[in-house]
């Protein structure tokens, strides 16, 4: 059966009419094969124009439509809708872009008319081989998995839970709140971190729609957007979370002491412990590796001491399977280890601290109860603060962490408050103070007495060593002169780096890391919290260095994306222009599998052929152009359709 093609030519007011001889076009198009009607019209995208197309489809019993007018980028969706309303599959239309790529770029009317003829002829030729495509829908789970209970993960969880979404919040550690929970005061308004954080942590713990899985890690992720199956390993806490009230009777009697990682190793904790005073949930946890009982020795001091019978040595690790539709990864950051670069003396000189260690020293729940003390128990007289440690250098991290300048100023201010007589030197090479708060903060505190700024030539023009019981810092100033400064304490603003386990996380979730180790967003500007794996979102420092407000914003953004795309009771609409494998002809060479940027192609071992997952496929067509047997069809951009178009444009 031959097709019945209708060609509608839009004059676009004077836009096309003045540049192209419409009558000549009509005469030419009438002579083309399969064309049963040609009609020029003033403005096809107007209501009248759309009505005309609808009527003509029915009147002439059209099976295909060609629209000659503006760019498909402008009105393809509009006209697709018109076809649909007229009962014709929207993929049976082709647009000839005779405005942007013809009328507007050719001054000579004869040439423009000639080019428009060719473009329409090609569209007529192509549209014959176009196939109707059906928009498929699949069922989906509206529940969401959030990995990481720092500010970003919590913001995502709460935003989703407020809309009554079921959230599984998975946290590797026994407590929630992430790094922010370890700080005392945060910039830019020197707000008390726990006053800000505790209410939302509390909300997370008591929310009906949030299920917290602490001490848990993701083992495996199967499936795809809308239908993920996630296996979570929940490690034993050995303390009953419901009956423990965090009274501390257990850790008072525990005989084992180990370095306290929550105070950056600056003091010790017991084998049964609460990470830090105020940690939520306020429940003890046993460190399996160090607990005498769990290592087979005779000790049950904590069990005897517990007034609530909460200690249970028999508890085992559990594996739980979750079904979710979307995933938010907010796995946070770690800092650059200054041991990697000898110039900082870190690890060798006792009173050289990283910024995270210093945050704990400042914190009233920290190892010194908030007192700034040297290792010998004396208060320091002079403190050096060093900017850009491990950042803005090609050797380690080329990027700027973006928050160090401002938190070092915060440190300087807090030090002056606690020890008014101490003198402070800041070694910097540039100040990074973006946004509406940072500069104000700088202006307010940089002028405080006793703070001196020394500018280095480069971010790493510094060398720290110990001499006669003092710390000697040698730096190169902007004029290239070498200078020495002594102090008795040094704080290093270490770069924000990807979390130590970022590679494992990327592997489990099958997402990509950039060269710097952070997870890559789908688009730096337009899709900053999406990844190229549909349904997996990223938020907070897992995506790149940022401050608290930035992390919260991303968490909420990820939640917003999910709320707008994954709606309970609604089915997921799939991209109709996907690629499909002719399974009978596929030789199973697997070339396409490695080429797919979305990991949408798998190999069926039993049937020995490739399969394309329609949910994950975005229709780029890379596989179709690479298949040596030519058996992958990129729907709506098939070889046949493109060949027809080539023939059309060449054979004028």
């Amino acid at each position, binding site marked *: 059966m031959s097709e019945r093609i209708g060609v509608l030519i839009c004059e676009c007011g004077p836009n096309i009419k003045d540049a192209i001889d419409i009558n000549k076009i009509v005469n030419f198009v009438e002579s083309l094969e399969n064309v049963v009607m040609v009609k020029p019209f003033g403005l096809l995208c107007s209501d009248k124009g759309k009505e005309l197309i609808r009527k003509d489809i029915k009147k002439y019993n059209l099976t295909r439509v060609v629209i000659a007018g503006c760019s498909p980028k402008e009105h393809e969706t509009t006209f697709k809708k018109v076809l649909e309303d007229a009962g014709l599959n929207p993929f049976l239309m082709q647009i000839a872009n005779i405005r942007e790529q013809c009328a507007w770029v050719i001054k000579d009317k004869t040439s423009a008319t000639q080019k428009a003829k060719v473009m329409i002829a090609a569209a007529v030729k192509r549209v014959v081989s176009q196939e109707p495509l059906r928009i498929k829908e699949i069922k989906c789970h509206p529940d969401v998995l959030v990995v990481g209970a720092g500010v970003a993960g919590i913001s995502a969880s709460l935003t989703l839970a407020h809309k009554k979404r079921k959230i599984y919040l998975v946290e590797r550690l026994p407590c929630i709140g992430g790094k922010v929970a370890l700080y005392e005061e945060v910039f830019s308004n020197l707000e008390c971190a726990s006053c800000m954080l505790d209410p939302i942590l509390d909300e997370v713990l008591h929310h009906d729609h949030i299920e917290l899985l602490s001490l848990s890690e993701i083992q495996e992720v199967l499936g795809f957007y809308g239908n993920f199956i996630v296996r979570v390993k929940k490690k034993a806490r050995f303390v009953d979370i419901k009956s423990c009230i965090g009274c501390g009777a257990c850790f008072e009697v525990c005989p084992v002491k180990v370095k306290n990682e929550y105070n950056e190793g600056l003091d010790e904790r017991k084998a049964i412990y609460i990470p830090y005073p105020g940690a939520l949930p306020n429940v003890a946890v046993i460190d399996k590796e160090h607990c005498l009982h769990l290592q087979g020795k005779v000790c049950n001091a904590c069990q005897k001491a517990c007034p609530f019978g909460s200690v249970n040595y028999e508890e085992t690790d559990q594996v739980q399977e979750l079904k979710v539709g979307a995933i938010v990864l907010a796995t946070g950051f770690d800092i650059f280890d200054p041991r990697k670069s000898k110039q900082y003396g870190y690890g060798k000189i006792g009173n050289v601290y990283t910024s995270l260690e210093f945050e704990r020293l400042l914190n009233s729940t920290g190892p010194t109860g908030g007192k700034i003390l040297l290792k010998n128990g004396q208060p320091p007289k002079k403190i050096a603060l060093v900017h850009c440690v491990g950042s803005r250098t090609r050797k380690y991290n080329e990027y700027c962490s973006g928050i160090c300048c401002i938190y070092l100023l915060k440190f300087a201010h807090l030090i002056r408050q606690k020890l008014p007589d101490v003198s402070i030197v800041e070694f910097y090479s540039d100040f990074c103070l973006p946004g509406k708060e940072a500069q104000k903060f700088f202006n307010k505190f940089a002028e405080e007495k006793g703070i001196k700024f020394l500018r280095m030539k480069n971010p790493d023009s510094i060398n720290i060593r110990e001499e006669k019981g003092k710390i000697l810092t040698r730096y190169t100033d902007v004029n290239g002169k070498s200078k020495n400064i002594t102090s008795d304490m040094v704080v290093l603003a270490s770069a924000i780096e990807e979390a130590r386990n970022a590679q494992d996380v990327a592997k489990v979730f099958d997402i990509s890391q950039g060269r710097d180790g952070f997870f890559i967003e789908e688009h730096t500007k337009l899709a900053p919290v999406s990844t190229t794996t549909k349904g997996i979102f990223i938020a907070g420092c897992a995506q790149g260095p940022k401050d608290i407000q930035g992390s919260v914003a991303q968490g909420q953004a990820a939640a917003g994306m999910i709320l707008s795309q994954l709606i309970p009771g609604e089915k997921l609409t799939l991209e109709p222009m996907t690629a499909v494998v002719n399974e009978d002809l596929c030789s199973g060479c697997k070339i396409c599998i490695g080429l797919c940027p979305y990991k949408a192609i798998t190999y069926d071992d039993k049937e020995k052929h490739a399969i394309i997952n329609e949910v994950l496929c975005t229709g780029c067509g890379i596989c179709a152009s690479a298949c040596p047997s030519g058996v992958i069809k990129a729907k709506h*951009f098939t070889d046949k359709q493109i060949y027809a178009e080539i023939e059309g444009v060449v054979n004028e």
Partner: protein
Amino acid sequence: MSDFEPKIIGFLCNWCSYEGADSAGRAGKVYPANLKVIRVMCSGRIDPQFVIKAFREGADGVMILGCHPGECHYKEGNYQALRKYILLKKMLTQFGIEEERIRLHWVSASECDQFVKVVSEMVKDMRQLGPLMKVNVGRFMKVARVRR
């Protein structure tokens, strides 16, 4: 052959280069009418056979335009396009097709000037180079340039 007008086919990716071509129109730029554009979703979709087909049908030059490296809408389709292009160019030269007849350029959605520049250059060069002619030799189709 001063009045020779070459037929140029351009395969443009939907996201950057096709948009770049549209923006040339919106900005009122002028370029030769010789270029006929075929839209594909990604430059990675451009099968070398499309280019060969274009030459067989009578195109005098073929352009492949895609997003800049690192800016592909589909992450890495433009890199795939580049790899195929390099090999294809080698192959076409062995067939006797001059390498200037096949070109790849990166054109972003905002680079209408770049678009106009590469298209104009192509048309100018092809006008100088002359038409690509098909000559049937026995059972094989030999493609060669007709010397004036």
